[in-house]
Every structure is written in structure tokens, then in C-alpha cells.
């Protein structure tokens, strides 16, 4: 197999030609502007481009989906709502509102009867509103956010044990994860509980109401402060329709968002490292060493 002898220069190789010599007049040659330069776009600093190869940490971003999953988790894994129906304790399925038909009818057929008719109890939630909370901190500038938060990691693979480090008393370096200040938002969910009987509904409202004004979410991921102000009972029985026992409530979550967008990742390094010291002492020997011939 022949090795290709000529190939076009990549960006780094091309820019390296401009580095020498460093001149204060031209500034740091590592600051590379996007081509073509666009006003408002952040400068690109290669020094901040750190490889995340083999990194198991999630890039620090919190999306709307994370907040939705926190609600889902709290309903299904913490509250674990259930009712007693036909002498059996029936767990309440938690569904997101207006899902696709293949999911609602085919994949989740267990809460439907043989003719695909819905069977109570059910709990539905869906996001209805996201409002910016401007009373808290903000990132100052979306194009170039400088208001960052730094988290120190307790373990870094760069400090992994080696004989060399141990012999030379290498000071372990600190690894920090840098995240921009999030957008604080208030997320509202419309929730509906549907049961066959008001007696069942009472128990469910008691459980959900008790969980109001607490932090909802998976403790190993994100938790958000929640509040529920009121429950509206909707019990109707129209001719030709089933008796409807439903309770509507609005769940409000104080969430925060860090998008996974390019301007966020470019403008702030997501990983920085502290200084690592490795001190070599001068060792001299006056003894004559007789090397074997």
C-alpha cells in the first residue's frame, strides 16, 4: 500500500506557518476567527479545544427533555401512584400527552382493552409553557457568555497512578468542568388524572398534593423545585359517553436550561486543568562508578 505523498494542508498546519515569530502587534496567533468572519460570533481559541476522547462525563447541558424526564421519573419512580380496582392494586401509567398512535395504541396497549378502548386509571402530563425567570442570574451575552460556573471533579484520569509519578512526587492536577450560567426558566405542565371513581381520585390527589413544593427528579441527575396550586375536579356524565372522573392540575417547575448549541460550546471551555508540578532535583554523585567492561 502506497502512502500518499502530497495532500492539502489542514487548518492547523496552515495556521502554524503564521505562528513564528510571535508579535504583540498581531496578537496571539492561536486566536483564529471563523472564516468568513461573522459579526457576533465568538473567536475561536484552539487552546480551549480540549479533547474529550474517552470522557464518560456528559457534556454539561440541561435541556427541556431533562426537565420532562424529571417529572416522569418523579411520578413513576417516587410517587408510584396506584389505585385499588377489582380487588387488585393497579399502578397508574404515566403518559406524555398527545403521543403518536403507534405508541399509544400498540406499544402501550396494556392500558387498553381488547378493542383499544382506554381504561382508567391514567395520568397524563404535557408541557404547556416555558417562561424565562429574569429574577435570577443570567449569562450576560448569548454570543459570548463569560458568566460561568466551575465544578471541580473528584477524580481525574490524568492523575492515574504510575511509578514515575510516585517516585517523583508529582502533585496531582485538578480537573474542572466549566459550565455557562444557565437560563433560569419556569416550566408549566398540564396534568390530568383520570380514574373510574372519585374515591380513587381522592387518594391520588392527596399523594400528588403532598409532593407539591418539593424537588422533583432523579437525585442522580437533576432535581427541580415544584409547586402545584390547585386541583380542578372535572366529573361529567353525558348521555352516550362514559362517566368521566378527571382532575386537572398545573405543575410548575423551576428549571434551568443550558443548551447544547455551538455558541455555548465555542465560547466557553468545558474542561480546564490545574497546574501539575513535577520537580526534578539535581542529583550528583562523587563516588566513582566502575562500569563493567
Amino acid at each position, binding site marked *: 500500500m502506497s502512502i500518499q505523498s502530497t495532500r492539502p494542508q489542514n487548518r492547523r498546519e496552515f495556521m502554524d506557518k503564521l505562528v513564528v515569530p510571535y508579535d504583540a502587534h498581531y496578537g496571539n496567533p492561536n486566536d483564529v476567527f471563523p472564516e468568513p468572519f461573522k459579526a457576533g460570533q465568538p473567536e475561536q481559541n484552539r487552546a480551549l479545544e480540549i479533547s474529550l476522547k474517552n470522557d464518560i462525563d456528559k457534556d454539561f447541558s440541561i435541556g427541556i427533555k431533562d426537565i420532562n424526564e424529571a417529572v416522569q421519573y418523579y411520578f413513576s419512580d417516587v410517587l408510584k401512584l396506584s389505585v*385499588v*380496582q*377489582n380487588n*387488585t392494586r*393497579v399502578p397508574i401509567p404515566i*403518559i406524555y*400527552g*398527545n*403521543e403518536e*398512535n403507534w*405508541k*399509544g*395504541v400498540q406499544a*402501550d396497549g*396494556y*392500558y387498553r*382493552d*381488547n*378493542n*383499544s*378502548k*382506554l*381504561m*382508567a386509571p*391514567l395520568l*397524563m402530563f*404535557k408541557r404547556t409553557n416555558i417562561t424565562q425567570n429574569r429574577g435570577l442570574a443570567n449569562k450576560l451575552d448569548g454570543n459570548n457568555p463569560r458568566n460561568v460556573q466551575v465544578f471541580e471533579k473528584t477524580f481525574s484520569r490524568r492523575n492515574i497512578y504510575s511509578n514515575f509519578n510516585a517516585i517523583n512526587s508529582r502533585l496531582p492536577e485538578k480537573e474542572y468542568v466549566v459550565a455557562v450560567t444557565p437560563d433560569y426558566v419556569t416550566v408549566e405542565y398540564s396534568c*390530568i388524572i*383520570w380514574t*373510574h*371513581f*372519585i*374515591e*380513587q381520585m381522592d387518594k391520588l390527589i392527596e399523594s400528588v398534593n403532598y409532593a407539591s413544593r418539593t424537588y422533583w427528579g432523579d437525585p442522580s441527575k437533576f432535581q427541580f423545585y415544584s409547586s402545584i396550586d390547585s386541583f380542578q375536579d372535572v366529573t361529567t356524565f353525558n*348521555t*352516550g*359517553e*362514559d*362517566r368521566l372522573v378527571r382532575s386537572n392540575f398545573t405543575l410548575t417547575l423551576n428549571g434551568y436550561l443550558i443548551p447544547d448549541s455551538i455558541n455555548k460550546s465555542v465560547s466557553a471551555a468545558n474542561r480546564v486543568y490545574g497546574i501539575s508540578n513535577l520537580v526534578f532535583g539535581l542529583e550528583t554523585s562523587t563516588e566513582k562508578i566502575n562500569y563493567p567492561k
Partner: protein
Amino acid sequence: MAIFGSSRDITTFRSISKELVNDVISQQCGYYKVSLSDTVPNIYGESPKKFYIGPVLLNCLIERGDFSFDQGDFGPDVKRPATFRFLKEDIMTANVHPEPGDIIMYNEVYYHADNVNENQLIVGKDSDYSYSTGLENFGASYSVVIVCHYISPDALGITQQRL
């Protein structure tokens, strides 16, 4: 004094209808009534634990509506109307008194009775309500028509579908 719809005419009507419904068409359904003496309602006028009388097997004419899927927040939900027509004589023989709230089972699907109509009278008269002498042998109430809608069996407590 009426001329038509005497007891002889009524007997003819009834025998032909009975043969048609019971021997020719022979559609059957199970009729459930809530046992009022055993079922205890709560403060909301409902009972998660219901007891039923029946099912009583009855011959009838069934007008099945189509299944319709209504999209809602919980996903598509199925609705289906159905109309069950009984001969009044069969109803009386079975000692069943149809009322709204009764349950009819047909092809393993349960229907909730919404309307009960006893409104088909032979020659427009009912011999039970004769206000003049001689009319007690003319006319008759002929049928009972029950308009129903499809209901989930889990709500009734008759069969358990949610496991």
C-alpha cells in the same frame, strides 16, 4: 270501540315477531342489572365494588354502531354506540326490568344502557292503559329499545382486563 288491533291481531303480531327474533335471527345478549341490595354506594353515589344480577340470556335485534377513535390528551379512545331491541314479552318472561345503568354484554363487549324506550305500540294503543270500556283488548306495547354505548369492562368490575 276500536276496530283493529284486537287481541287476536296482537297474538298474530307477537307469534310472528317471536319466531323471527328467537328462531330466525337468533341474536343473543347477556343482560346485567346491578343488585341494589348488595351494592353499597359511597358518598359520591358510586361503588367500586358492584354486584350484578345475571347475566340473563335474551334474544334481541342488535344495531351495532361503528367503532370511532376520538383523539384526546390520553391518545385515541374508542367509542361505539349500539342499540338493542327486545320483544317486551321476552323481557317480561325473563323478569327483567330495563333501566338506564344496566349493562348488556354482546360478543364479550360490554355496553352501558343510556336510554330505554318503550315506544312501539301496536295500532298506537297500549291495552294496559285503556280509558274506555272495551279498549282493554286492543293494542299492546310491543318492544323495548335500549340505546347503549361501549364501556370499559374494568369500570364495571365484571371482568378484569388491567392486570
